[in-house]
């Protein structure tokens, strides 16, 4: 294991090579590195995967970089937010890549889609924000870290087979793979034009545009969050962010942890933390396993899931981790960082039972209320969406993963949260249905479709067993922040609804600035839509979620780069 030296706010830190800046700072015991604009509240690592923009730092003079996405480099200087206009950035000529199909996302769905599309003879461009393929599910450390990349993973050989196939296709020129790149603008048309940007300014500049006749969008998702008092304190993270830190950088962000929310994902997070030496003092599951048992006949359709659950149960028992059902964290305690949490027992609707609240000490709280898909790109493409059973906005697809927009396919969590196996199979199906369509041949994939149907049924059972507690909003206080970026409290939402006649989430957003900050509502829009529905005594609707999820920029883009969006890009001579 080698180490590198970085300078953080003037002080020299020896950190492990292969880490991200955020992991390096967390490992060095730095909990926060910037304060909010309005109230000076400390901010550090929260989502850990580039969604929330809480962890912004200035790296080598380049401001507004997400610390969780920048790998450390020897001699790097890291500062809190500054805004320097003098640092020169790499400039590159506008280049374009052309392919039959552009696959966005290299998680289980995107990886499978890219590999199967290339297997079918198509030219593929694969665009992914990650430094390495695998997405959040198969997140693994930088080889420079010298850690075991398989640690904590299920179905790892499945991943390595896909990765080997990807490598083969890349060598053969059938797949052009652009890592650490995001699609900022999806320009509809025939062909589609994707405008790319590096995830952080230190990353290599990808070709500015990708032109493709077909799209397979596999944007994945991230942890759904329900704000509670104190949830913006450093030391509160998303469950997925904790998982990413442990799996991707072998770093633990605390010593004593509470994991709270609902769903089976809480278990691997707890097991991973415990294996890494963190004392997990409670896993709080808001729902009851009895609900799960009622759906057991559907679980039987996916026996490998049952085996996984048993393994985690054994891990929890081995580490003596208390698993508390019908228990929630109603508030996070602390001043500058997390010092503890208030736990409470709840009824099936999520109402806290009188006399059951108690304090527990912890310096790390991980929240996970299931997942919510990233829909920026599908919505930019104009596809039809619907409200899924878990309250997420998801894309409508047909049995070939085709959306309502011709030549746009979507696979994975964006069609309904259902886990990695389902995502991988959908990715495969999307690619195979595209190959079949292009060859004007019927698709023979009965077995694949049967497996997908079964996994969908299983996912539905899980969602039914792990709903977001209806009474969640009763845990909030007037000054609980709904929007972390713009620091909008519950009381502002209440005022917008009660006094200003806001009747929907979009109006609430415009009146309060909820979801108008750095993350553009990725973190809080779902919660705000729920809260608005609650306050207006209406049901959560697809329209409410659509109205705040639609955006023209799927990632922040330098103004200088925006100025070139209409430039005619040139094709690199080396392109096939």
């Amino acid at each position, binding site marked *: 294991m080698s180490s590198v030296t970085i300078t953080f706010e003037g002080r020299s830190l020896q950190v492990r090579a292969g880490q991200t800046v955020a992991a390096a700072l967390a490992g060095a015991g730095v909990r926060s590195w910037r304060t909010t604009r309005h109230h000076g509240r400390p901010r550090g690592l929260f989502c850990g995967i580039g969604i929330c923009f809480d962890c912004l730092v200035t790296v080598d003079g380049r*401001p507004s970089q997400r610390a969780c996405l920048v790998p450390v480099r020897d001699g790097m200087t890291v500062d809190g937010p500054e*805004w320097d206009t003098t640092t020169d950035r790499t400039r590159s000529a506008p280049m374009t890549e052309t392919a039959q199909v552009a696959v966005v996302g290299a998680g289980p769905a995107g990886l499978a889609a890219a590999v199967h599309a290339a297997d079918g003879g198509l030219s593929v461009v694969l665009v992914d924000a990650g430094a390495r393929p695998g997405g959040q599910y198969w997140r693994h450390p930088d080889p420079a870290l010298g850690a075991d990349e398989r640690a904590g993973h299920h179905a790892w050989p499945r991943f390595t087979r896909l990765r080997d196939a990807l490598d083969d296709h890349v060598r053969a020129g059938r797949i052009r793979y652009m890592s650490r790149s995001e699609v900022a603008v999806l320009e509809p048309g025939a062909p589609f034009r994707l405008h790319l940007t590096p995830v952080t300014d230190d990353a290599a500049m990808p070709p500015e545009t990708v032109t493709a006749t077909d799209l397979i969008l596999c944007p994945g998702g991230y942890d759904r969050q329900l704000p509670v008092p104190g949830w913006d304190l450093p030391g509160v993270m998303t469950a997925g962010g904790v998982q990413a830190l442990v799996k991707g950088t072998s770093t633990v962000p605390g010593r004593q942890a509470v994991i709270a929310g609902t769903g089976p994902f809480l278990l691997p997070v707890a097991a991973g933390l415990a294996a890494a030496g963190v004392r997990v003092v409670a896993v709080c599951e808001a729902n009851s396993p009895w609900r799960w048992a009622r759906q057991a006949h559907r679980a039987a359709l996916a026996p490998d899931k049952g085996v996984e659950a048993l393994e985690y149960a054994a891990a929890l028992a081995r580490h003596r981790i208390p698993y508390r059902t019908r228990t929630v964290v109603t508030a996070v305690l602390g001043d500058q960082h997390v010092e503890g949490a208030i736990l409470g027992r709840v009824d099936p609707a999520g109402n806290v039972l009188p006399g059951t609240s108690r304090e527990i000490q912890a310096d790390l709280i991980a929240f996970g209320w299931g997942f919510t898909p990233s829909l920026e790109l599908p919505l930019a493409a104009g596809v039809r969406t619907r409200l899924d059973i878990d309250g997420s906005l998801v894309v409508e697809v047909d049995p070939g993963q085709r959306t309502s927009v011709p030549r746009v396919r979507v696979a994975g969590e964006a069609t309904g949260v259902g886990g990695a196996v389902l995502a991988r199979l959908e990715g495969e199906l999307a690619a195979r249905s595209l190959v079949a369509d292009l060859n004007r041949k019927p698709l023979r994939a009965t077995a694949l479709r049967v497996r997908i149907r079964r996994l969908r049924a299983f996912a539905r059972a899980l969602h039914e067993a792990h709903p977001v507690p209806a009474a969640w909003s009763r845990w909030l206080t007037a000054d609980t922040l709904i929007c972390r970026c713009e620091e909008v409290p519950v009381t502002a939402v209440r005022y917008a609804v009660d006094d200003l006649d806001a009747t929907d989430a979009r109006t609430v957003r415009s009146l309060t600035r909820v979801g108008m900050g750095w993350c553009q509502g990725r973190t809080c829009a779902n919660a705000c839509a729920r809260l608005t529905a609650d306050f207006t005594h209406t049901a959560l609707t697809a329209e409410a979620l659509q109205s705040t999820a639609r955006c023209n920029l799927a990632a922040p883009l330098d103004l200088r780069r925006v100025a070139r969006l209409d430039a005619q890009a040139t094709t690199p001579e080396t392109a096939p």
Partner: protein
Amino acid sequence: MSVRSPDVVVIGAGAIGAACAYFAALAGCRVTVVDRGAIASGTSSAGEGNLLTSDKSPGPELELALYSQRVWTDALAEHGGLWEFEAKGGLVVASSGGGAAGLRSLVAQQRALGIAVEDVDGERLRDLEPQLGPTITGGAYYPQDAQVQPMLLVAHLLRLARERGARVLTGTEVIGFLRERERVVGVRTSAGDLPAHDVVNAAGAWAGDVARLAGVHVPVLPRRGFVLVTEPLPVTIRHKVYAAEYVGDVASSDAALQCSPVVEGTPAGTVLIGATRERIGFDRTFSVRAAAHLARGALALFPVLEHAKVMRCYLGFRPYCPDHLPIIGPDPRAPGLWHACGHEGAGIGLSAGTGAVVAQALAGVPTTLDLTPFAPERFPEHP
């Protein structure tokens, strides 16, 4: 006429409708506002909230703007804080010799009409706006140019109107008019009939469709505009800064894409970059061309923004009239129907004056402003 106050139905819960409702309620009318969407769900939520006299050439629109300025700072002054009224000042800048000369002649005309405006150059320009790029050589400073947060404006005007007895029915679409022979005597909505003595069409970019339901023609068309929003920045842009060409673009009737930069900072730290103008119907498709034009324009004014990250880009539809004048007043072709629409990109700023005169006219008192230039029947019946 009944001895009670006449019932007024206002169609449209945007800035114009809200101002009409507020002033009519204040005058004692019983008002009902209907909108098929939520409050301010059309153009009012898609602009910057400009209260400008600087971009207006002498004529009736400037008269309305000056009158509105008085209403903002007089009748509405006590509520200014509710909608974040701020007289931040406007700075029109020019880089070319020709642009500068054109600007100077406009400034002279405006000054003659009582607009506060100061010619600025060199050092004074950099005092006012230190981050301006080196190619900018001259300009004009309008200390009275102001802004409001348009969503808060609409929401609070409607709230104040409700406190004076008005009703606001959102999610309620007007599907026809109630008639007694020629006369309009109310509206038919998706939630039932609403009889009223007078009906005000304040449906903004959609006002033409509403007028058609009453069998009359008002030539309001959508003129699309995009706005870029940057990340919160420590860079300070204190005024509304725009290029002299902006005034020409506002007055132009060209359907093709036009873009002249308007750049300003906000209390949230973000920098707003407008404004494109394009007549291509209600097309909500993102235009990379419009966004790129905006970015280039902003960079010409403020090269310092080169690496500022754009977080969001939104669009809206200005209610455009071919002669660039709003349509305000009673429609003799359908007695009982009034129009207050077609304010193009100036509707937020002109809402105060529009609401105030419409309320006067509805109440049958002499209007402070002559409404003749804004008459609905000024257009040919069949275009």
